[in-house]
């Protein structure tokens, strides 16, 4: 029978049918030609004639190719021949990704493990970056924030706010700005229809709103006629306050509210976008500052912001403000110290985010990067192991034409896919981790409430995912590509030495990085433990503190405070529950007041000391020993000679072994200049010395401190922070209701006061270590994570190696090696890279000691005990990780092992 297939096929060869389809068509058309042939034969034609006729008819038109060409099936894309490149980069890339996706989905267990490990590492990084971004990197949240600058005085090595005179001078002379303003926190207590509450309130200078670019949603800003000290009292309220306390009605403009017990007219409502101060909760109420400039006032508490004039660059403004320093120095020589560098423009993060916080954030970023690298090493090992198992497939591809580059690209496509999925997961995980971090952060950090996922965090996460995928992908791809064909098909399952070297190297890296993190965590823990054993200098047991949440306007002068404290103390005289009670301007270990002072009669002996106003029972209540002289008594009141008690540190510093009793202190005066004329109280006599306590923090050595009786304290110092005095009380019996006694006593003295907060002083001590505790916990968590990942890596690598070397182990056992010897062999192999890693980790820790040193207390960064303890932990965990595979190896059946291949 004639064969039509060849001819039909020839007509179809130029078309792109898939092989299966082409075969079908050839079949079908051949059948048709057969039918034609047989019909002719049946009609009587001889077979040769029938064949000739049929063939002639088929060849007559020769339009088959032309008519078939438009069909979709004639234009099928070329089949995916593994290893063959189409020559077009994007198409190849798409093929690679498709194939990678298939592979990843096929080996689900492996992929899920890789994704989870990477998601952990990426998530941690994303979390820390989002905090870093919110606190340090993001631009300020008001209109055209880049046109707003801070003016800062660079004096004696750090940036300070301006003094009154400096503000006035630069305000009047600097030409680069449209507006310049300053502000101050002022007490705020609003009384609306009987409901009294504290509000966040700012006093602002003229042009404040103009500098920041905020407008009023209702009403207007302040007029020039409202900013003098005797002008009518006006205020602006925030959008939030308008909504919640005034029902969002337009009638609020022009209405009167009671602010600090005064009638104040609301002239406007701030725009909803108002968010100042930006390092804290936004203010609810803004009032004119009404401050006057006194040339004798050298206090630097005028933070200054300014808006750049249109067309002026930051650099030009910087030059402008700096150039005024010398003329200022000539005009006001007393205002400029010798080492002062002059006026400069500063950024937000330089001013409002303490250097310590910045250091912590960047160190944290470094720590999570280490964790990420460890995770990468783990996943790289996983990919390496899998690449070894795919030796056959890679060889096949190579035989079909794949270059080393193509193989590398294929493996990288898989790693990129895994990393991108992990990145998406990590972004969500990071968001959760970040919110936990923010919730637990013990200190006030500017803008930390703004932490969230924005485009920058997403971009960062994406870039990190991509980078890590290339990192661990290439670690696996490189040996795979290199060992493409070379003896692969004959190769014993032991694997190339290149692969095994990389694997060992990754384990060394993991161990080393874990070691660094563990050392860091260990040192922070040691610091924390050391600090918890520091003697604060007073006895916090059974000691309770009382704090009032706001300061009513009627408590204005120091005498008001004194009167209040005296009455409360009298209320509790003879109380069965309270053994002793005293008032103070602040609690130990919390922020207090400090002031410059000069020793009487020695104008060259001066300095800044901690200043506390206390009632007579203070030292007794706190358990502070009186070392010489006498303590305060009820006769030390206004009108009587002003007295003070100093601590040992003060006496040591200024009197070097002589007794300071009888000597005098001039507070508020330094080198002939007053920092605030109303704070001046010259000639305070020292009547006693008390033991040092840690006034500022447990880490800091006791500062030079002076105590004055509340009755004699000057109002401007006493009311400096705008807070009511606190009380400390020692309970008489354990279990007596101290809180109720204190609360009722205060209520009895002044029922209009808001409810006081009562808490144990132990809380204050613990809270003062909150930062250290937080840091130690955080780093310990990271170190534990790193340790777990490393252990996983060691176990995985060792288990894989044993599987590859089953035959060898079988031979050894057949030759007489005992289970113990095999165990030892495996353990040694597993531990060796860890030992090297530990060594490298120790060296790196020593190298990084400078970074950590600022966080430590009581230990050095190279503390041998910590290093040794941490090394032991790491080696212990590593040994445990090696143990299971080692036992498995020891329990191998030699016969089976020898037979396996």
């Amino acid at each position: 029978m004639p064969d039509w297939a060849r001819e039909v096929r020839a007509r179809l060869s130029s078309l792109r049918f898939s092989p299966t389809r082409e075969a079908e068509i050839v079949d079908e058309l051949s059948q048709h030609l057969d039918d034609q042939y047989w019909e002719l034969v049946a009609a009587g034609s001889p077979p040769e004639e029938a064949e000739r006729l049929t063939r002639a008819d088929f060849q007559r038109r020769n339009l088959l190719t032309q008519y078939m060409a438009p069909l979709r099936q004639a234009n099928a894309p070329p089949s995916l021949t593994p290893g063959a490149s189409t020559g077009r980069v994007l198409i190849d890339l798409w093929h690679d990704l498709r194939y990678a996706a298939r592979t990843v989905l096929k080996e689900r267990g492996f992929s899920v493990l890789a994704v989870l490990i990477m998601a952990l590492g990426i998530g941690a990084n994303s979390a820390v970056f989002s905090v870093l971004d919110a606190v340090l990197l993001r631009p300020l949240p008001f209109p055209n924030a880049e046109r707003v600058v801070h003016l800062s005085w660079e004096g004696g090595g750090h940036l300070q706010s301006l003094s009154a005179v400096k503000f006035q001078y630069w305000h009047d002379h600097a030409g680069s700005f449209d507006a310049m303003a300053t502000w101050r926190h002022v007490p705020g207590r609003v009384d609306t229809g009987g409901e009294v509450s504290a509000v966040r309130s700012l006093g602002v200078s003229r042009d404040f709103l103009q500098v920041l670019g905020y407008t009023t949603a209702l009403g207007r800003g302040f007029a020039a006629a409202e900013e003098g000290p005797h002008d009518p009292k006006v205020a602006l309220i925030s959008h939030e306050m308008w909504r919640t306390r005034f029902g969002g009605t337009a009638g609020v403009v022009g209405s009167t509210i009671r602010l600090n017990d005064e009638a104040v007219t609301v002239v406007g409502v701030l725009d909803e976008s108002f968010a100042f101060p930006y390092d804290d909760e936004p203010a609810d109420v803004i009032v004119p500052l009404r401050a006057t400039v006194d040339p004798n006032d050298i206090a630097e508490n005028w933070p200054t912001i300014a808006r750049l004039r249109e067309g002026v660059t930051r650099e030009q403004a910087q030059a402008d403000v700096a150039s005024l320093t010398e003329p200022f120095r000539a005009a006001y020589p007393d205002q400029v110290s010798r080492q002062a560098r002059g006026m400069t423009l500063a950024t937000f993060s330089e001013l409002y985010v303490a250097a310590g916080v910045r250091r912590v954030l960047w160190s944290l970023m470094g720590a999570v990067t280490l964790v990420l690298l460890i995770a990468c090493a783990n996943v790289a090992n996983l990919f390496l192991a899998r690449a070894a198992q795919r030796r056959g497939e890679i060889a096949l591809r190579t035989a079909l034409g794949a270059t080393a580059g193509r193989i590398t690209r294929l493996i990288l496509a898989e790693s990129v896919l895994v990393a991108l999925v992990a990145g998406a997961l990590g972004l969500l995980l990071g968001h959760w981790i970040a919110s936990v971090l923010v919730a637990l952060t013990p200190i006030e950090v500017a803008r930390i409430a703004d932490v969230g996922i924005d485009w920058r965090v997403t971009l960062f996460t994406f870039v990190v995912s991509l980078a890590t995928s290339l990192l661990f992908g290439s670690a696996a791809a490189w040996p795979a590509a290199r060992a493409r064909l070379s003896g692969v098909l004959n190769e014993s399952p032991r694997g190339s030495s290149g692969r095994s070297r990389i694997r060992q190297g990754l384990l060394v890296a993991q161990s080393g990085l874990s070691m660094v993190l563990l050392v860091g965590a260990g040192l922070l823990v040691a610091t924390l433990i050391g600090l918890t054993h520091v003697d604060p200098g007073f006895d916090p047991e059974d000691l309770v503190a009382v704090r009032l949440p706001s300061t009513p306007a009627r408590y204005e002068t120091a005498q008001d405070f004194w009167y209040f404290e005296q009455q409360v103390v009298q209320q509790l005289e003879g109380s069965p529950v309270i053994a002793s009670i005293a008032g103070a301007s602040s609690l130990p270990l919390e922020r207090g007041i400090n002031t410059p002072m000069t020793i009487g009669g020695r104008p060259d002996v001066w300095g800044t000391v901690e200043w506390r106003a206390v009632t007579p029972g203070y030292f007794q209540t706190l358990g502070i020993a009186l070392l010489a002289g006498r303590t305060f008594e009820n006769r030390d009141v206004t009108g009587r000679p002003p007295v003070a008690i100093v601590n040992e540190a003060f006496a040591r510093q200024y009197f070097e072994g002589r007794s300071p009793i009888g000597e005098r202190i001039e507070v508020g005066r330094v080198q002939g200049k007053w920092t605030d004329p109303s704070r001046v109280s010259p000639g305070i006599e020292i009547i006693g010395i008390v033991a040092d306590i840690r006034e500022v923090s447990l880490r800091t050595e006791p500062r030079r401190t002076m105590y004055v009786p509340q009755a004699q304290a000057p109002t401007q110092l006493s009311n400096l922070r705008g807070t009511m005095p606190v009380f400390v009380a020692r309970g008489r019996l354990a279990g007596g209701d101290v809180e109720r006694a204190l609360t009722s006593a205060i209520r009895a003295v002044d029922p209009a006061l808001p409810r006081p907060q009562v808490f144990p002083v132990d809380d204050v001590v613990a809270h003062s270590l909150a930062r250290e505790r937080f840091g130690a916990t955080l780093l310990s968590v990271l170190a534990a994570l790193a340790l777990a990942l490393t252990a996983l890596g060691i176990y995985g690598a060792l288990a894989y190696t044993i599987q590859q070397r089953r035959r060898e182990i079988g031979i050894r056992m057949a030759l007489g090696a005992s289970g113990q010897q095999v165990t030892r062999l495996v353990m040694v192999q597993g531990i060796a890279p860890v030992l090297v890693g530990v060594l490298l980790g120790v060296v790196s820790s020593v190298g990084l000691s400078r970074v950590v040193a600022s966080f430590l207390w009581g230990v050095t960064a190279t503390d041998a005990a910590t290093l040794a303890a941490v090394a032991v932990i790491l080696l212990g965990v590593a040994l445990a990780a090696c143990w299971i595979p080692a036992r498995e190896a020891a329990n191998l059946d030699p016969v089976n092992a020898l037979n396996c291949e």
Partner: protein
Amino acid sequence: MNTRALDRELKKGSAELLILSLLDAQPRHGYQLSKLIDSRSGGQLTFHIDSLYPLLYRLEERGWIKGTWVEEPNERRRRFYKVTVEGRRVLAEQRKTWAAFVEAVRRVTGGEHA
């Protein structure tokens, strides 16, 4: 009359209609179709192998007909085509269109009645 010219012109406009209506009656394979068309049209319409199968494949790609391999005992496997639901719908439309066209032509060219 030039059969070949008629052949070509009419075939162009009606090829699909022919195939669909023949397959509507019953499933057929390619050779059967070509024989049927030839015999029923009295030789006026013929489909060469070069044009028949591309047409069938085009109709199959559109989803109007579906081809299935059928294996009879002692026989080579053949591809039988049948009309799909969608094909039946198209066929009805095309029949209507064709009938309307024929009617219109007839009315225009039909003899004047006295």
